[in-house]
């Protein structure tokens, strides 16, 4: 598979997150999805240690339902967001699945301030037709052990 296809997929996902296109973003995920944002460190055991996000498919659907409901106060008004995806490396290439590492930097503007979020994403992408589904995504925030503000958008 050409790497440009992987790049294209990650850029597409980034645009959907930036533009709060929740349903389209949800469609990128597999049925056995796992969306994980560890807390305090990058390699914690989620069975013993709290996470910032640990969503299976059901929880992911609930996350999107809530964000879409219009009831999330931190989305009133909606933040403006743009992120850069870079340093893309395909670290494992199976016959039907890829593991891709990338870095991101995200600007979030709301309420008179701009926040900068940064981290590394690990995508496990499963080939499907001429594109991919996200089987698992882990987001390693550089701030995962700091006092952070609300994270009420897609990362």
């Amino acid at each position, binding site marked *: 598979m050409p790497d440009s296809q992987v790049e294209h997929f990650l850029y597409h996902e980034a645009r959907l997150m930036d533009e709060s296109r929740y349903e389209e973003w949800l469609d990128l995920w597999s049925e056995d999805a796992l969306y994980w944002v560890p807390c305090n460190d990058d390699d914690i055991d989620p069975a013993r240690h709290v996470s*910032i996000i640990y969503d299976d498919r059901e*929880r992911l659907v609930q996350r999107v339902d809530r964000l879409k409901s219009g*009831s999330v106060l931190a989305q009133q008004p909606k933040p403006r967001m743009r992120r850069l995806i870079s340093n893309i490396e395909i670290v494992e290439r199976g016959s039907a699945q890829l593991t891709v590492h990338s870095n991101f930097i995200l600007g979030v503007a709301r309420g008179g301030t701009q926040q900068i979020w940064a981290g590394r994403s690990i995508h496990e992408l499963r080939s499907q037709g001429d594109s991919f589904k996200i089987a698992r995504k882990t987001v390693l925030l550089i701030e995962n052990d700091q*006092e952070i503000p609300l994270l*009420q958008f897609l990362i």
Partner: protein
Amino acid sequence: MIDVGNLIQGTRIHGSLYRDPSVFARELDAIWYKVWVYVGHESEIPRPGDFVRRAIGLQPVILVRGADGKIRVFFNRCRHRGNMVCHLEHGNAAAFRCPYHGWTYTNNGALIEPTFSEGYDAGLRKEDFGLTPLPRVDSYRGLIFASVSPEGISLDEHLGGVKEFIDLFMDLSPSGEIDVRTGIQKLRYAGNWKFMPENSMEGDYHGPFIHKVAFALHSKRTGFDVSSLYKNEIPDVIRSIPGGHMVEDYRKATIEPPKREPSPARQAYAAALERRYGPQKAAQLLTTIAPLIYVFPNLLYLMTHIRVVQPVSVDETYVYYQPVLLKDAPDEINVGRLRDHEFMFGAAGFISPDDIEIMERNQIALHAAGNEWLFIGRGAHRDKVLPDGSSIGHTMDENHIRGFWQHYGRVMSLPAREPARAGA
């Protein structure tokens, strides 16, 4: 000096209490450096040498179990020229070595020797230069509290009537013990610290307004429908406890249990509770919500976790969410508690972020001076006051918030702590 007495008038409090930097400065001396403040739980430092770095008000401290097994709290400050002796957030250490000039202390706090000691006068006694311990440290059911002030009421007296509810929370564990080595979700918000206890303890009133969608998702997921709490105002739930403590006591607020068949782990957990507490109490523990508890000034016990409120400035606060595991409960129950916690709490949760957004907006709105007073009068006409000074109200009443402010006003009006004296 601020006359706090004028700013707290029964069912109304003045907005400057959340906004005035001189109120915050006074709080440091009158509250944070005077009363008992929660610093950590015994399960965080099980072995000799285990330590965690914490703060009391703005003062950095180390909570450590010494080589002798004894738990101590030290000011995190070298006796040489005042640098921080411990910069790690947690760990295990036989000794703390100040990075600046290498002065090294045992984990019992004793100075081993000043470095290049030949340059010091023979009269220098290293016994005079140990890490400075907090003058008072005590614990209740593994919860460790310390006080910067050498004098004051005992911890037992401070906790008073809230101990009964801490016990109830701990009873959820089949061994009566908890484990909080679960990591800490750390948040910051641009608002006063007092919003956190107030908001955390009145979810029955604000729930239907800001948590409606999350509550619906939660009841769909767990089978527990909490909406009955605010549809039918339930008497005798909200408690104000002398000492500024607040409790939501749900023992009389039965909630329809899930219709679904309990999992094998849930059945094993229920059996373990029955063995320890008997069938009647076990049934009560399993069919009601554990009490929500606020211990003045910085500790909250809320459903899945211990929450610690850390003031930073008059309009900035850190808050730490630390999930509680039940020792000797089946693994599946504890994993379920973690996943339940992440659903509700933390920066990306479905419930607490709406609270935090509300607190930040509250901080902004309180700069409006058209009418400076906040009204906390719900249920005042039907307050049930008990002989010990507690009061009991309906689920949405504000009697506990009035009790918090009465206590706050009393503590803030007492003579301030004597400034620390020069010398060892």
